[in-house]
């Protein structure tokens, strides 16, 4: 456990170092930047609360990604699922609030968000499960469509009569997620933590988790074990989508209160490096997401101070991913430890059941085979 945490820290440190150099090249003071970042993100109570608040949706996204990734299913549709969950929550919340009251509204909207997130994964899931269509492409496409639909909804049926940028009706502060213990941290954070723990238990202690992991390791093995890859694929995807959709609800009900048109923080892609860094382990992801939230909140503030775009954090995340991959290469090569993904998923060196009849591999077209 300790060694695992150490190896997770190293890429982050390397990436931070690299970014420091980049900052220096651009004429900004790296040390001041980092000082600002940690000051704001971690040491100031206000800032730390912000970080925890920011981590709430990210935790849910991480939980959703882990369920899919461990089954070797690339759910890259996170952004679409997140925004749809958020849009529907923001759209229905005001009217539900009036007719039902606070708690029923909260429960109803979170359910709706989870459902739409799950529903949004069905097409990619079926295409992948039954026909072997690459889910990277399908989830991405659905994501873009989802972003569009969310915007259409917000600019259309859900729009409230306010001049300026289109947005939904604001849910009054008192009627959102309750706050915890006199801090500004809201219930969403608890939901996020619960989700992570639930996924951890699911993956490590339940038979469903085992089945999903087998599917991830080798669809052929899954077939031999009598599992149904299509059903498992759909289940995994829907669970994943549901959690990410829920994260959208958390963002609205916990932080934003309404959905502004063209709102898109693109969390879906950002969380991916974090879950990999944690080797798709749920508890590890919990820690790393919080660490990252600190970096993000602090970084946004530091970026403003340094008069630089906050997109600089994208570079940081990309670097973390790269360094992580490179370090794993060296570790595996020198026999120092396990691969950065659980051994099941690392076995993609072998063809993923390409000749299995259930179509889990790509379909072979006209025989373009090298003549001998």
């Amino acid at each position, binding site marked *: 456990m300790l060694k695992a945490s150490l190896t997770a820290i190293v890429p982050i440190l390397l990436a931070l170092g690299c970014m420091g150099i*980049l900052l220096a090249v*651009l*004429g900004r003071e790296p040390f001041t930047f980092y000082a600002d970042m940690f000051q704001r993100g971690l040491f100031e109570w206000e800032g730390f609360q912000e970080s925890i608040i920011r981590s709430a949706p990210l935790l849910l996204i991480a939980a959703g990604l882990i369920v899919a990734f461990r089954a070797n299913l*690339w759910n*890259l549709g996170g952004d679409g699922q997140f925004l749809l969950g958020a849009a529907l929550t923001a759209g229905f919340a005001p009217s539900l609030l009036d007719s039902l009251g606070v708690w029923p509204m909260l429960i109803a909207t979170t359910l709706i968000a989870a459902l739409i997130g799950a529903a949004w994964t069905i*097409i990619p899931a079926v*295409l992948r499960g*039954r*026909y072997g*269509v*690459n889910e*990277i*492409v*399908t989830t*991405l*496409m*659905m994501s*873009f*469509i989802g972003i*569009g*639909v969310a*915007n*259409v909804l917000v*600019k*259309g049926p859900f729009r409230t009569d306010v001049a300026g940028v289109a947005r939904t009706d604001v849910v009054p502060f008192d009627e959102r997620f309750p706050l915890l213990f006199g801090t500004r941290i809201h219930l969403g954070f608890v939901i996020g933590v619960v989700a992570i723990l639930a996924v951890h238990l699911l993956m490590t202690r339940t038979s469903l988790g085992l089945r999903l992991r087998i599917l991830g390791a080798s669809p052929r093995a899954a077939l031999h074990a009598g599992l149904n890859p299509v059903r498992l694929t759909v289940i995994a995807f829907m669970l994943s989508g549901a959690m990410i959709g829920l994260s959208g609800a958390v963002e609205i009900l916990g932080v934003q209160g309404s959905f502004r048109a063209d709102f898109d923080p693109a969390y879906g*892609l*950002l969380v*991916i*490096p974090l879950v*990999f860094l944690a080797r798709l382990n749920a508890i590890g992801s919990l820690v790393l997401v919080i660490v990252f939230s600190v970096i993000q909140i602090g970084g946004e503030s530091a970026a403003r101070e340094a008069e*630089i*775009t906050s*997109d*600089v*954090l*994208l*570079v*940081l*995340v*990309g*670097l973390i*991913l*790269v360094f992580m*991959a*490179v370090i*794993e*290469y060296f570790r595996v090569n020198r026999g120092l430890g396990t691969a950065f*993904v659980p051994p099941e998923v690392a076995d*993609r*060196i072998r*063809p993923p059941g390409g000749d299995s009849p259930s179509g889990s*591999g*790509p*379909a*072979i*077209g*006209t025989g*373009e*085979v*090298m003549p001998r």
Partner: protein
Amino acid sequence: MVAAVPLLFASLGELVSEQAGVLNVGLEGYMLFGAFLAFVVAYNTGSEMLGMLAGIVAGAGGAAIMALLCVRMNLDQIVVGIAIILLAEGATSLLHDAAYAESRPSLDAPSELAIPLLKEIPILGESLFTQNVIVYAGIALAFAVGWMLHRSSAGLSVRAAGERPEALDAAGVSVVATRVWATLFAGGLAGLGGAYLAIVSAGSFTPFITQGSGFIAIVIAMLSRGRTSWTIVGSVLFGLSLSIATALQLIGVEIQTDYVQMLPFIVVIVVLVLFARRSYLPSALALPYVRGEK
């Protein structure tokens, strides 16, 4: 039509790369690198040509990262691809902000070349056949690539690298080298596509200018099933759906931009649902090749 060109270049490159077994998820990143560097060079030198060249170099540079990490070091292609996209988005946004936040420059109108006879065709002639030189080069390139893939031994090596790398290795050709070249080719072309986007299509660079074109290009490459004629068709189709907004406005039809922006992606999903069984992918796609491993 103009929107189709970046897609055409990027998907052509990706087609070759996929045939060799490398899935460049980071294609969007190569395009961004290409667009940015092309813009910077074109802006500072005033030369379109140099800008385009810069785009190729930048894209290939991005692909070099992929080649090194995935082909040579056998790291996971998808993870690295995502990393490249994040890096490209962040870096180009950062550099653009640092250099041009105040000034927001743009380039002069791009040069056009009209084909004499064909230009005279009524209605379509003027717009279809008066394009930047690069466009004609692109179409020619598509045919050239198609010929190369299916009728030359280089193309054979490429396809073998994707289909059965062991066979290629047994024949004495370096699988790694083949894949590296294919990846760089994809990067260079994607960079060129990005360059076109910045120099000709938009006239300037804005962060995230590619708006998912890289992913569409990946889909086009997958749907092309190894035949470049389909690549051209796909690019035109998606290019049309991308630019249909402006076209509709010209005709006077008012449709919300969001609907229109979704259109290409919906088209992709529909196409995939209809043709799921027929998407052709090489067997060894996205799998690292390690010599001697069973």
